[in-house]
């Protein structure tokens, strides 16, 4: 097992949705309104690596995570899993891929079927893939998955309904359902944002432990930079459907380059007294992804924006080993700042 073995390689991924228009609009306007939720993303995730995807709502981070798992249809681009391109029109191949790539959802109160006992919910992936023959085997595997997720002893949780568990326990049960197939890759969509702070760190520890013990690769989607820093090897900052900066997590936090990353960092809540912190609170909100600004998509809110930013879209360029940024300020021909 090589350490740097690539698990997921996303190339030029685009996800677009048609906006539903009213009946009259549909008749009278020829132009379709399109939301470019993900607008050309390249992303590599290696074995035993946690990559965090950070952005505000509307940045397309969740859509990207779901698109990688084929939970929303991909408009353009390809996804390589362990070096092999996945053909999403081939149902068998998709099923096989789903087997190895799982998702953890944000809201543990909603992500478990309220009518399913824990044992049935956790065992469901086994049944769908015909992986168990006897009830005994099924129970054993569920208990193991529950205990691997920190619900020990597993027997005590088998015959409970979701509403009988606390938030943290539910999230662990959902994680058990994802682990039972021994996946290689997990997309974790804000897995702790709905939980109380005191419970959060337990779930984070669990994910880190899984990464270590099973060499799992994670895509960790979050709006919280400090969480991303804590848990991940790499951080990718997304803005309006594109990655604007990506690099090692310490590098991003300590030596960020993109003005958007810097603004996010400056307002990051830190439990410290900081009355005179130099906060760069951006004006306005993230634009509507159906009307992406021309040029650099951040130019409308950027304090450093100059003429070129309004015309030309910057490319993601490597500034340092593994640290990429998409901003004209860092292109070679620019000599300012």
């Amino acid at each position, binding site marked *: 097992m090589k350490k740097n073995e690539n698990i997921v390689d996303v190339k030029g991924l685009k996800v677009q949705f048609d906006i539903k228009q009213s009946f009259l609009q549909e008749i009278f306007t020829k132009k379709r309104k399109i939301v470019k939720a993900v607008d050309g993303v390249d992303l590599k995730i290696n074995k035993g690596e946690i990559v965090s995807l950070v952005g505000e709502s509307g940045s397309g981070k969740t859509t990207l995570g779901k698109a990688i798992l084929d*939970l929303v249809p991909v408009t353009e681009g390809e996804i390589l899993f362990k070096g092999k391109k996945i053909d999403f029109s081939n149902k068998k191949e998709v099923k096989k891929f*789903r087997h190895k790539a799982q998702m953890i959802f944000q809201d543990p109160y909603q*992500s478990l*079927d309220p*009518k399913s*006992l824990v044992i049935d919910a956790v065992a469901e992936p086994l049944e*769908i893939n015909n992986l168990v023959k006897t009830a005994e085997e099924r129970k054993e595997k569920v208990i193991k998955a529950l205990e691997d997720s920190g619900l020990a002893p597993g027997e005590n949780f088998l015959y409970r*309904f979701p509403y009988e568990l606390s938030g943290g326990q539910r999230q662990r049960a959902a994680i058990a359902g994802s682990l039972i197939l021994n996946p290689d890759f997990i997309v974790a969509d804000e897995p702790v944002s709905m939980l109380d702070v005191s419970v959060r760190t337990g779930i984070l520890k669990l994910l880190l432990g899984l990464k270590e013990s099973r060499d799992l690769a994670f895509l960790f989607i979050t709006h919280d930079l400090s969480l991303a820093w804590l848990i991940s090897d790499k951080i990718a900052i997304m803005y309006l459907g594109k990655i604007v900066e990506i690099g090692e997590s310490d590098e991003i936090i300590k030596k960020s380059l993109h003005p958007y990353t810097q603004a996010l960092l400056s307002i990051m809540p830190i439990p410290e007294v900081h009355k005179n912190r130099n906060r760069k609170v951006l004006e306005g909100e993230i634009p509507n992804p159906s009307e992406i600004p021309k040029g650099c998509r951040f130019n409308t809110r950027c304090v450093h924006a100059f003429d070129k930013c309004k015309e030309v879209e910057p490319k993601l360029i490597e500034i340092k080993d593994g640290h990429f940024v998409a901003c004209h300020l860092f292109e070679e021909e620019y000599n300012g700042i």
Partner: protein
Amino acid sequence: MSSIKREMRKKKLQEFFNNFKQNKMGITGAAILSFFILASVFGPMIFPFDPMEFGVAGPMEPPSSSHILGTDDLGRDIFRNLLAGGRVSLMVGVLATVISMFLGTTIGIVSGYFGKKTDIILMRFTDFFLVIPWLPLVLVLAAILGTSIWNIIFVIGITSWAGTARVVRSQTLSIKERPFVERIRAIGADDKTIMIRHILPNVFPLVFANTILISAVAIISETTLSFLGLGDTTRPSWGMMLNYAFESGAASTGAYWYFLPPGICVVLVVLSFTFLGYAFDEILNPKLRRR
């Protein structure tokens, strides 16, 4: 496996009954209904007879000790007719409801789950059944298909599912957007599994409460049809009794014992189903349940 699982189920059932016990409407409905079910199941066993046999006594005799509810214009015992009629009416109610529930649930879930074109087509189809004047359709169908009891059940079943389908569809629309459905899809489950294993159990309480109300409608429908002379003449239902009573002019001659008993029975049974429907709705729908 599972004694524990069984115990869980038992616990849930117990919880349901505890809630039910506190629901006065539900208890009343259950009491009335069980009385009628017992009477129509065991009644004819206790009083074996052919309900259609006439001339057991003189025609239009008022209630007496030998015929506690009197006799009709053909000299048939009304009490015995009532017992036999209950069997038919309840059977029509239950069977028509099963058909209606099956159609309504299937069409509702499929329509809501797949959406898009499937939804549009199925819902227009549903609208068709929802808006066409019910009585003329039933009259026509009953006339074409003939007046056997099975045809009546079929006709009632096929004309009463549209409301259920609508309700189930809207519930499915909201359930399929819930994150747990997405999680199950991410696991790799196909549409059939999701619909049967996850959506159905979640819409079922609603279907159940809705369906009980349909039973009431079905019984009224049967009564109406029979009253209008489209009933099965070989089987004495409450509707048929009312029809005969009307035709023989019982109302104008003051033969209250002829038309009142079947009328009261229909009202009570329909009321009991309605009570039960509301009670189940209240218990199974936690939003309505008071803390």
